[in-house]
Structure formats: structure tokens, C-alpha cells
């Protein structure tokens, strides 16, 4: 009886546990208000893209939407944006110091209440400082739930989700678009070759480098061509752009990276590398397989030998028995012959 109760309790706890881990948090969205859209540029439906003079003031609206079926209290705030080490757009954290676009924006509210599936338009103002540097400035308007659940007991992390509407603001003037391919290297990650392009933006506008890596074997034959991952390099920033070689194979190779960032500007760098025939894991797997095959053969031989000896013994016994019977009859026959 006690066992049954225990099993039921464990079952209930497991069900509750799986329910708790399935709870999601999010369902918020943020995007430029319809008034901010430029029909000639579809990206303006997702991001704020403005060109503003130093000292100019721009009044705009952002739409905040609650896509969930429950009311939600949210925080809304502006931040500066950077890129991650590998070039992904990354709005800064709420408590990070604001020195760029995040500092130029004033939002009419800092908190909002949203009913299920409700969208609210929020006013904000961008005031570009008189001494703003010419070039691109990036930021975002962030929305996130006001309350987040406490972490579980033990070593745990709370997970907060945020959604941001990107802001790409250009202060007009002399635009400098200059990218430098500083280094081309590779690492082996999860048994795949990952190429890294170290790119530095020496200009004042953001750059989205494009290009490919051509891989040749030692005979000079092109074995693969891979497109470099699409990321972005902010002004005066350096990124390490990773590109995986999904078809990593064994052999000696030369990789030529070609990075273009303007209609006529292409940067190239080459490296040579070697991929060993089998990785350590593959070696272990292979030796395990070899051992299994050898063990199976030995096992088989031993079984066959046992069968052989058993059969032979039985056969020998039968012969002995037969021989034990046969001499009598022959003696009789011999005796009979003699008597005749």
C-alpha cells in the first residue's frame, strides 16, 4: 500500500515538475508605429531608420504589443547598442551607462499595462546633440516584463526575456567606409573547422561584410566554397566573425577568404591547415569496433572448437561402443570357420 502511494506521489511530482519547466515567459513585441514606416524601405517596418542632423529633434511612436492571453505590466526603456564579439546586434543592458542613441531618447512612459492581445502606441523623442559625431549610431527601445519570477532553490538562474526595436541613426557628413581584415584563423570546434575573420571597422558607418571562403585541397582542386556568416561591424569596432565548415573532411587544405564590403572593395587572406583523418572520438569508436570484431571472431572460434570437441568426443564414444560389440561376433565367425 505504501509503495503504491509513493509511486503516485512521485508521478504527481514528475508531472508538476515537467509543467513547471514548460512555463514560458515572453509574448511581448515592439515595432515602429505605422507612421514611421517608409514604403520605399521595408526594413522601416521592423527598425527605426533615421538620418538626423546634429541638434535635430525627432518625435516618433513605437508600438508595444502583448501577444499573450494574460494582462502584463511591462517596462520600456532606451539603450545603446553594441555587437557581440562575433558581430551580432546586441542592445545593452538596462543598467548600462547610456552615452549614445540610448541617451538621446526620451520615452513618454517607463511602464505600461497591456491587456491580452493589446497594442499600445508610445511616444518618444530623439534629440541629437549638437556635437554628435558624423556617421552611424545604433541603439534600441526595449520592452520586457516588469516582474520576473524568482529563481528556484539551489544554484539557479532566472531567465528574463526582452524584445528590442533597433534604431539605426545616421548623422550626415563625410561618411568613411573602411574595413580591415586583420586576421584569418581557424579552430576545431565539435569536430568541425570554424574559420574566424578578425575584422576592424576603421570608418564611421556600420558595415555588413559579405563574401566567401574557398577551400582547395593540396592538388589545388576547389573542394568547397562557403558563404561567410552575415553579421555587422559597428564603427571603430572589431569582431571575430565565425564561419563553420560544415563539410569538414580530412586532408591538407588552403583556404582563401574574400570579404567584400563595398561595390569595389574586396579584402583577401589565405591560410593553410590540415585535418587529421580521424578525430580522437572517432579513434576511440574505431578501436572499440575493432576490439568487438576481434572478440567476436575469437568467441566464434572458441564456440566452434567446443562444438568440434563435443561432437568428436561423442563420435569417439560411439566408436568405442561399436568396437566393444564388434570383436565378439568376429571371434564367433572365426571359431565357426575353424570348426568347419
Amino acid at each position, binding site marked *: 500500500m505504501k509503495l503504491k502511494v509513493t509511486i503516485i506521489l512521485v508521478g504527481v511530482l514528475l508531472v508538476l515538475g515537467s509543467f513547471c519547466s514548460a512555463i514560458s515567459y515572453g509574448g511581448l513585441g515592439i*515595432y515602429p508605429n505605422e507612421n514611421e514606416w517608409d514604403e520605399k524601405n521595408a*526594413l522601416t517596418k521592423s527598425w527605426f531608420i533615421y538620418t538626423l542632423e546634429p541638434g535635430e529633434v525627432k518625435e516618433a511612436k513605437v508600438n508595444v504589443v502583448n501577444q499573450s492571453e494574460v494582462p502584463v505590466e511591462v517596462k520600456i526603456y532606451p539603450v545603446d547598442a553594441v555587437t*557581440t564579439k562575433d558581430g551580432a546586434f546586441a542592445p545593452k543592458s538596462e543598467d548600462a551607462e547610456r552615452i549614445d542613441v540610448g541617451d538621446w531618447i526620451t520615452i513618454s512612459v517607463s511602464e505600461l499595462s497591456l491587456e491580452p492581445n493589446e497594442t499600445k502606441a508610445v511616444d518618444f523623442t530623439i534629440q541629437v546633440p549638437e556635437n554628435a559625431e558624423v556617421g552611424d549610431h545604433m541603439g534600441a527601445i526595449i520592452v520586457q516584463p516588469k516582474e520576473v519570477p524568482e*529563481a528556484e532553490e*539551489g*544554484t*539557479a*538562474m*532566472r531567465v528574463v526575456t526582452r524584445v528590442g526595436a533597433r534604431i539605426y541613426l545616421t548623422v550626415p557628413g563625410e561618411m568613411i567606409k573602411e574595413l580591415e581584415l586583420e586576421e584569418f584563423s581557424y579552430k576545431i570546434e565539435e569536430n568541425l573547422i570554424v574559420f574566424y575573420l578578425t575584422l576592424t571597422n576603421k570608418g564611421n558607418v556600420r558595415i555588413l561584410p559579405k563574401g566567401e571562403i574557398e577551400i582547395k585541397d593540396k592538388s589545388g582542386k576547389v573542394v568547397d566554397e562557403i558563404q561567410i556568416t552575415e553579421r555587422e561591424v559597428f564603427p571603430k569596432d572589431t569582431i571575430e566573425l*565565425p564561419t563553420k565548415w560544415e563539410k569538414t573532411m580530412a586532408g591538407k587544405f588552403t583556404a582563401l577568404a574574400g570579404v567584400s564590403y563595398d561595390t569595389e572593395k574586396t579584402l583577401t587572406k589565405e591560410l593553410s591547415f590540415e585535418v587529421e583523418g580521424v578525430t580522437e572520438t572517432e579513434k576511440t569508436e574505431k578501436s572499440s569496433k575493432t576490439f568487438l570484431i576481434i572478440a567476436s571472431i575469437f568467441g566464434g572460434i572458441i564456440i566452434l572448437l567446443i562444438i568440434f570437441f563435443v561432437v568428436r568426443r561423442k563420435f569417439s564414444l560411439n566408436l568405442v561402443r561399436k568396437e566393444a560389440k564388434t570383436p565378439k561376433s568376429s571371434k564367433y565367425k572365426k571359431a565357426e570357420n575353424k570348426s568347419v
Partner: protein
Amino acid sequence: MKKILVSILIFGLVGLIGGLGGIQVVRAVDTALDITMTAGTLSVDSSASASLTGKTVSISAQDSTGTIANVSVTDPRGSGAGWSAVMTCTHFTTRATQKTLAGSNNTVTFSGTYDGLDGVLDPNGTFKVTIVAGGIVGTATFDWWDPAGNQVGTAVTTASTVALSNGISVNFAAATYVTADSWSAGVDVFPYTGLTVTPGTITAASGSLTGVTAGSAGALSGTGATSDSKTLMTAAVNAGFGDYDQAPSLSLTVHANSLSGSYSATATITVS
């Protein structure tokens, strides 16, 4: 005979009229078939928390592992703008319950979440408060020391709550405090620089995986209370229309001889 002929004629006429009536007039008509697709909004969901495997305090460093389940980015905007999902994390910190170092007054408590900015302190640190002038709350004054052992406050006036540093406050309940009475609270940290995040494989619940890439595995970096952002997954321009799932795995270095207790941190996942 005549009747038969008349009947055939009548039936024939009826059939002819019926047949003619059945012929449909075919006309070419232009009908505009338009459909307007309204854009949705970019969003991100994830499990509300992630647990790391519990460990027993040890004389050597060890690793605690876990996973953030169900990180899901949905892009029904239909604009092809592309998106990025990045993650930051605070330090994993704990605050032990207070100890009475001198005196018999148990009316002082510590509260707040330690920000961990003093780093790992041989192997953990302690906030210490000592009364330097007795009296009731508002009259008594105290000195205090931060986890690094530096005396930060001198003759600070007591109050129901006084902010110390690094996110920690000291609370004085109503009582008469005696000079030299002293209390402490230990704090400890597992820094985010010891947290390796492996973004892992992306699966498409809806949409194509072309142009959608996962970030590289690696430890978080930074110098502040919150780490620098790390890429979880990105969608290039004209890619990433749909619903993409990922379960980043975590491995946290837990230093030797740590304080026992619950350590917590906050990870923030941002999609834009």
C-alpha cells in the same frame, strides 16, 4: 398513330427546350483576388529559470552544469529584416545568514542581493557591522567593512535600513544598541567569467534554417555586474522567417571552499 406522333413531337420539343435551358452562358469576368498579409511581431520565449546541478562544497574546483530550455524566437514580421538573439548574465552570488560576533542583540539583519563585484575573496568575503556609539535606532552609530575587508563606513547613523555596498543593506530592528556589539554576513560569488555557454543546435519549428546560425561556444566575458552579450542565434537579412528553438547548455566553474547555500544569477535573453 396520329396520337403517337403528336406525343413524340411534344416530348421532343420538351426535351429540346430542356436541353437548351441547360446550356450555360460562358462569360469572361475579371475578379480581383487580393489578400493583405498583416505583419506580426518579433518575439522571444524561454523557460523562466534554469537550474544547474547541485554540488557539495569541495576543497577543489568543480563544474556545475545545466540547460536553458525552450529558447524560442518567432519572427512572423514577414519583412526579412533578420534578427539576433543574445544573452547576458550576472554573477552567481549568495548571502549567508548573519552571525552575531559580539553582544547578545539579535535584531540586526542583512538583506539584498550581492552583486559579486568584489570577485572571489579568499575564498569568500564578509560584511561586518560594529556599533561605535550606543543608543536606540537613529541614535546609535556604527562602522562597517565591505567583503574585501576595507572599512568603508565610519560612525554611520543607524536606521531601519541602511544601504552598505554591492547591493547589500543592513537592517536595525527597534532596540537599544550597545557599543562594540558586532554582526556579520558572508557573501560569495561564482563569477560569470566561469560560465561557458554552448548555444547548441537550432531546430526550426517553422521556416527554413538557411541563414540562421548559432553562436560559438565560450565563456562569458565582461567587467561589470552584467556580462557582455553573447550570441545565441542570428538570422541574416531575408532569412529567419518562422519559429526557431534552441536549448543553450551551461557549465559553471564553482570555486573550492565556497559558502554553502543557494547561488543565483539572472540571465537576460534579448531578441532584436
